């Protein structure tokens, strides 16, 4: 587990860093996919197989593809951004803010007792159990989620189609 953790973490971090720094939008998304894969790997490592698969299915199969589509539909087919943004005040202030927050959260984690928990870990979670919980204890959020997703689907179609419909 230890070795796997370090390798996957490195991959995940690499993916994340590349996703927010690369100049080419499509490359960004490909790096994002790498990041998603890393997260999925972490889920497998954490014995949450179902979530890992869901992560791949939804994030790589749907979200990443969606983002790619968005890039293509904004007519920026080659994915290249304009001239490099100047590292101005905005950039530095943003990065510094993020860095401060990150440093403080890390410090908090170091300080916290919780993070030194013994490594007693969960056994693999069964899909059956998750499924049963979903339709018993969590049925209301589950249904709400179904409605939300439907609404989001319709909403996304409406927003994206608005101009097309108006043109007709």
């Amino acid at each position, binding site marked *: *587990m230890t070795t796997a*953790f370090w390798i996957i973490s490195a991959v995940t*971090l690499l993916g*994340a*860093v590349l*996703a*927010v*720094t690369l100049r080419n939008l499509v490359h*960004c998304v490909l790096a*994002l996919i790498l*990041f998603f894969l890393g*997260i999925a790997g*972490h*889920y497998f490592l*954490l014995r*949450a197989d*179902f979530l890992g698969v*869901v992560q791949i299915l939804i994030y790589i199969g749907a*979200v990443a593809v969606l983002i790619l*589509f*968005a*890039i293509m539909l*904004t*007519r*920026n087919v080659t994915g290249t*951004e304009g001239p490099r*943004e100047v590292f101005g005040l*905005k*950039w530095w202030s943003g990065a510094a803010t*993020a*860095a401060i927050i990150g440093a403080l*959260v890390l410090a908090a*984690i*170091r300080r*916290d007792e919780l*993070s*030194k*928990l013994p*490594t*007693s*870990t*969960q056994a693999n*979670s069964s899909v059956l*159990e*998750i499924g049963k*919980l979903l339709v018993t204890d*969590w049925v209301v*959020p589950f249904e709400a*989620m179904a409605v*939300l*997703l439907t609404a*989001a*689907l319709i*909403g*996304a*179609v409406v*927003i*994206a189609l*608005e*101009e097309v419909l108006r043109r007709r």
Partner: protein
Amino acid sequence: MSITLGHYLALAAMLFTIGLAGALTRKNAIIVLVAIEIMFNAAILNLVAFWHFKVFTTLTAQMFAMFSIAIAAAESAIGLALVIAIYRHYRSVDVDEMKTLQG
């Protein structure tokens, strides 16, 4: 050295910071969305780690993670639809140019 919860929390914090930095510095709306997805995932990773290291004994954490994933999916769908709509209107996805609401 064995892996503890702290490792995962630190990893998630780093990922979150990266995402935050991306959301704060990049100008392209799509990349901002990408950065937001990264932050989402970092948070969800925390939840799963909490479950794995038995901070929560029930499957609640996994449920939360699953719902978060679903919400993130919905959010990205809507977000990207908005980006496309904005692009159609302004011919740009630069977040700095979306300033119609200024006072």
